[in-house]
């Protein structure tokens, strides 16, 4: 078991009313899973993903990640936890515009104080693995959307995470590029990486092993 969520609630107060963003979520995810979270706009998909990624708080409930009780951990430990085990992939890639492909992939290692020689070999491996060695000195603005997303995935994978969280990773791509990315995810999953993706597309959801449907903050 990778993570476990029990009786989780998240709400906001608006004009005296309590509006539930997530309502009594129960979820268990095992290592090697490939989960697709689906649901209409405003159903709480991204919120759930952010909570799993420990970027966002919740109001009530339990969240255990690798048997660590996230809900009781201090901010700093939580940050260490997600830095160690979780990689993020975004719909709009979120590459740093001022850095080249190489440097973007390298950045997470810098924050983890890897030595220069280690960084070089890790980044070189990653460039090889995704076949983007020739593009390593280009800036994000010089790449197509699909290529940018590949860099985004490479960057997420560089620190060897157990879990990849992808928020509509193909949302900004055309169908051919999208297919490529999804195949990439499938392959990563086969290599043993746990993946949770948020998606609107039925087709993309079928790449996963399990589908979780959300409606008004509840799993249906």
């Amino acid at each position, binding site marked *: 078991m990778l993570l476990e969520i029990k009786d989780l609630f998240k709400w906001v107060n608006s004009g005296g009313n309590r509006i539930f963003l997530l309502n009594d979520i129960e979820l268990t995810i095992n290592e090697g899973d490939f989960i697709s979270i689906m649901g209409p706009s405003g159903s709480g998909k991204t919120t759930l993903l952010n909570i799993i990624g420990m970027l966002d708080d919740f109001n009530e409930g339990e969240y255990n990640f690798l048997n660590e009780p996230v809900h009781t951990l201090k901010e700093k430990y939580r*940050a260490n936890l997600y830095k160690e085990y979780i990689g993020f992939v975004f719909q709009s890639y*979120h590459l740093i515009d*001022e850095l080249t492909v190489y440097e973007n992939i390298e950045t997470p290692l810098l924050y983890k104080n890897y030595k220069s020689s280690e960084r070089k070999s890790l980044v070189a491996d990653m460039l090889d693995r995704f076949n983007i060695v020739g593009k390593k000195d280009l800036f994000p603005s010089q790449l197509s959307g699909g290529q940018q997303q590949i860099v985004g995935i490479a960057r997420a994978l560089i620190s060897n995470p157990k879990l990849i969280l992808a928020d509509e990773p193909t949302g900004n791509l055309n169908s051919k590029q999208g297919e490529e990315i999804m195949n990439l995810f499938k392959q990563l999953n086969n290599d043993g990486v746990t993946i949770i993706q948020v998606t609107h597309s039925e087709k993309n959801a079928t790449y996963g092993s399990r589908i979780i449907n959300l409606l008004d903050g509840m799993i249906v």
Partner: protein
Amino acid sequence: MLRNYFKIAWRSLIKNKLYSVINLTGLTIGMVCFILIALYIQFELSYEAHHEKADRIYNIVQQQKGNDYRGTDLFAVAPMPMRNALKEDFQEVEAVTNVNIRGSLLIHNDKSFSERGLYTDEDFFNVFTVPVIEGIGKEALKDPDIILLTESLAKKIFGNAPPLNQTIVLNSLQSLTVKGIIADTPKNQHFDYDYIVSNKLSSTFLADENNWSSNNYHSYLLLSKGADYKNLEANLSIYDKFTKPIYESVGLKFFPQFFLRPLKNIHLYSNMNVEMSQNGDIKYVYLFGLIGLIIIVLASINYMNLATSKSAERAKEVGVSKVLGARKGHLIMQFLGESFLFTLFSFLIALCLSLLLLPAYNVLLGKDIPFTILGSWWVLVGMLLIALLLGVLSGLYPALFLSGVSPVKALKGNFLKNHKKGELLRNSLVIGQFVVAIALAIGSVIIHQQLGFIQNKKLGYNKDMVVHVPYWEKQISEKEEVIKAELLNHSKIDKVSISTQIPLDLTSQGPVREWEGNVDNKEMWIYRSYVDYNFMELFEMELIEGRGFSREFATDSSEAYILNESAVKKLGWKTAVGKKFDDGRVIGVIKDFHLQTFDFAIEPLYMTLRRQHFTRNFGHVILKIKMDDFENTKLFIEKTMKAVVPLAPYEVRFMEDSYIALYEEERRLGKAFNIFTLLALFIAGMGLFGLVSFQVLQRTKEIGIRKVLGSSITGIVTLLVKDFLRLVIMALLIATPIAYYFMYNWLQGYAYSIDIEWWVFVLVGFLACGVAFATISFQSIKAARSNPIKSLKTE
């Protein structure tokens, strides 16, 4: 890691060219001003520091309580016999030197040079540090036949020929041998000279040597190590026994009380009568220091504002970095690093610019400030530290602000909302900037007005088209009539007068004891002007009673006096003509005119024809001319005077120029003040630019919605401009009383000054609003014209 930060910093610098240029310009201008002002201050504070024993050198000065000469009873001179007396009476006195500087004529091989000579004794080299470049120094002063030349004068006279052992004739009297070459006088010394000779050559030496009332010399003493000058000062009253009887014997009610003035305090901390040169003023040092500080603070506020506003655009990068594992510390480091890089870069540019601008700056201030930053490493390190401190201070707010934003918000790009605290801070900073800039602008307008007022004020006489030729040769007075007749032959010369002083700086003053109605035998101190028959007519001075001097009255040349209004008023007379005054009678009363600069009020004055011998040794040939063909007229004057009295170089000066020269210091500082003010306004304008960009960015969505709902571009611009003009007007309201207070006090320093007028504040207000409006509209129009779909899509 560090390299990565710098890489990002550098690339974002390059990517946002406009922003970088604006930000860099502001910071660099600020630093250039700061460096230049620091150099000025350092220079002013460095006076006399080159004298190795400067801390032990004291200037003997005196107070004559009851003698109010040109506004102060302090005199920077001492009697000559004090030198030997001090050396004998006080063990702690190591050396005493008497110094006098006078302009005289040097002749070598028929070429003549009018130069400033230092007349002194052997102790001069014991007290002061003067490097000898060639030949002898100290020993030379024992021998009155020797002259020491400064390096540049030697070059001027002899060119590249060896100057040692050459002969020079002084004042057409003594033949002297050049025995030594000394270094030029540093500009940061309170007296300067072109050559040094023994004071035995001075015409008054024999008379002065044992005379306790001879105040012809400036005296400096060297105290032994560890001695307290206050002790010595307290004992100086033992010399009252010499001075008091002499002053009493000529009927003076006051006598000198001596005290000591530390050498290093002379330039900035005192302004007595008969100083060696125009002293500076610590007031100006403080003023400029304040302006320098203000400008550097303005520049850093600017940087903060611009960096914060820019940071909004970098929110995404911050969010990504955080998600990728950057801690708060990482981000603070990164933004501080950027700020460091920026300030360092700007500091280097500022250094180069200051070096390039220094010559022009020196011309502006009339100084000779060296670029000492590279000379002494600690100044450079100090400046570098200031630059780094600036980097921390100005980078701190953006660093803390950005690193504290939560990654989810940063990625969504809406973290700017509800940032009220930051807004208040930024608004206060901009108001602060404008308060300072507006106050400076008001100040500079008023300074400009006052200086203009001085230059155009009715002086009580007409100085237009008047030129004067100063002279120190008594032969000129002897051949007065010939010179006048020759000069008047020229068609462009209307009037000629040969008189002792010109009205710009009448300094001769003395007591008068006899006048009609002086029953208590009182004594009145009065200014004296020794003139000829043509003086009043030439200057178009206005008589209000009686008549001017005339050859038709034989007695005029021996006993006629003309008083000014102030004198008549002080004497308490209703009418003056015919009344007894001093050794003669009053024949007329003249309308008050200014005797000196406007710093001094008009005081009582009498005019009389030149009759005593001492009034004829020097003076001015004064001419009223026609302006056309001035160059030829000038040549004619010089040629004519040379034909009558050869040798002396004659310099034709415009009264107007001499007049302006009196206000040189103020004029120069005024100009510098204007320039620094303009720069401050410019920097403040850029600060506003930063704030507006930030606000516009924050309100992008609002602007988009308004446009979709049908608002026009003008409507949106008005919306944005309104808010900011409010800030500027608030700044104006705060700045007005502050500026009024300071300028009112400044004007009090002048005996005659302008009134501060309300329109100055209105004018500056409009100017500030104009600058603000220009900056704001640039950004606002850009925002208002953008496509609303774009701005709405980001949400």
